[in-house]
């Protein structure tokens, strides 16, 4: 199914990607071709297989036990873009 420029811009909003720059024009163009490629799946007749449950794979969950880790500040601070007062700083969220 063809996808409009408006729909592609909406997808970018959902994906938290910028849809205003010149690079996005190329991305939007590529998306048309890629969606055309995955559309081939619509030709496949699945017969009576309709559900998507995979019974072969099972999760092996570990016990939910708290494990002492080193100081969160030691873990987070070295990689944080902006670390202030024991936390990661971001632009104001609530007015």
């Amino acid at each position, binding site marked *: 199914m063809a996808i409009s420029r408006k729909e592609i811009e909406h997808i970018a909003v959902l*994906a938290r990607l910028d849809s205003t720059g010149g690079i996005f024009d190329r991305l939007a163009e590529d*998306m048309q071709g890629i969606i055309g*490629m995955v559309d*081939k799946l*619509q030709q496949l007749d699945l017969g009576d*297989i309709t559900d998507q449950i995979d019974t072969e794979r099972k999760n092996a969950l570990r016990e939910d036990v708290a494990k002492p880790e080193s100081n969160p500040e030691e873990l*987070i601070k070295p990689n944080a*873009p902006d670390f202030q007062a024991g936390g990661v700083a971001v632009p104001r969220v609530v007015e």
Partner: protein
Amino acid sequence: MELYQKTAGELSALLASKEISAVELAQDVLARTDAVEARVQGYVTVTKDAALAQAKAVDNQRAAGEPLPPLAGVPVAVKDNICTKGILTTCASKMLYNFVPPYNATVADKLAANGLVITGKANMDEFAMGSSCENSAMHPTHNPHGLDHVPGGSSGGSAAVVAAGEAPISLGSDTGGSIRQPASFCGVVGLKPTYGAVSRFGLVAFASSLDQIGPFGRSVEDVALLSDVIIGQDKMDSTSCAAPFGSLHAGLNPDVKGLKIGLPKEYFGAGISEEVRAGVLAAAETYRALGAEVFEISLPLVEYALPIYYILSSAEASSNLARFDGVKYGFRAQGIEDITELYVQSRSQGFGSEVQRRIMLGTYVLSSGYYDAYYKKARAAQRRIKAEFNGAFQKCDVILTPVAPTTAYKIGEKSTDPLEMYAGDVCTVSVNIAGLPAMVQPCGFDAHKMPIGMQLIGPRFGEQRLLNAGLAFEQASGLKNIIAAL
């Protein structure tokens, strides 16, 4: 013969008998890296000082008479999407240009516990999305067999450094062919293990239901040795499971008399180059001469493998990569006053164009109104693909196919057309969709002296069967331990 030219198996014996030390070996491999790395560019980071310190520690343990595992003191390169505590792990992305993990991936812990010496972090396509290593935000990697050619991808660096003698073995990851296609392009051996055989804990996630870590080497034996180190259930990865076999290295046996090898006709059709087809069919003849039973089979659903793969893998990628938002770690766009704009700008400036394409496709196939037609249908189709392979393994023990439609192409040749790049994955993605193991090894060279690879696919947990069949071919063909001249 220099030490860097030896296989891990040979080096293991030399180290055990104390004919060489781990420090001498590390120095030799690092000297080779100094000599060729400017041309190959297979690494994002070379960890020279840490490697020498690790090697020294192994030598001390050996001098003290401690019993050591087979690969203790052997150098290994690690793909840059596998977390290594205290060592930069970038996924070849601007998004993680400065990320130093505070923890080890389980496989990195296993390398350390077995005394392996990490030489560095290998280059890749950004977040493992790509088939040529050209999507690295750092630099492209060059194929050691022809420097103007791509090494394949996404684990192009892991394959190239092994082919160039910059490490005897390495780790990569394979979501749709990312170990197997670069192994083929670089003339080395690569194994994509059964889904769940190797812990994914600490592997930066691309498509969690398809990703699997696996080994590269220049011989089947080396791949078996490194597999023994990394395979095993892990509490930190709920999808990992216990493999129903012991040491793959101890189980190596090159007898293929009576082995039933299926050749799926759809993998040899239009789109596969004449040289690749001829190379793989010649390998089939070698197997016949060795006493195997080789016959044609049919896997018609391969026609739908690319759409199924790109829907499932992109859907999972769009979800997995949502965590990269510029807040907690990695790249953050500067001068932004609004939180949503911080996410948008950090992601748009931090991710390369291929990663953005995959996130867009994944978001689309999961979005309201399209979920049933794409994602849900692809998941159901995945069951059909699995059933088709199960049926094939009722008739044959292993399946032999090409790895990619062509041998390594020139850098820049396909990088402008994403669809052409995706089409190159047609022979490898079904294996991930079905969760099966598959091994690639060299089976010849094309007219330009670029390696041709072949792929052996096995049933779930059929790793030993693949290694044994691969060893038989390796011994018959002599195509082993191929190091590019450079």
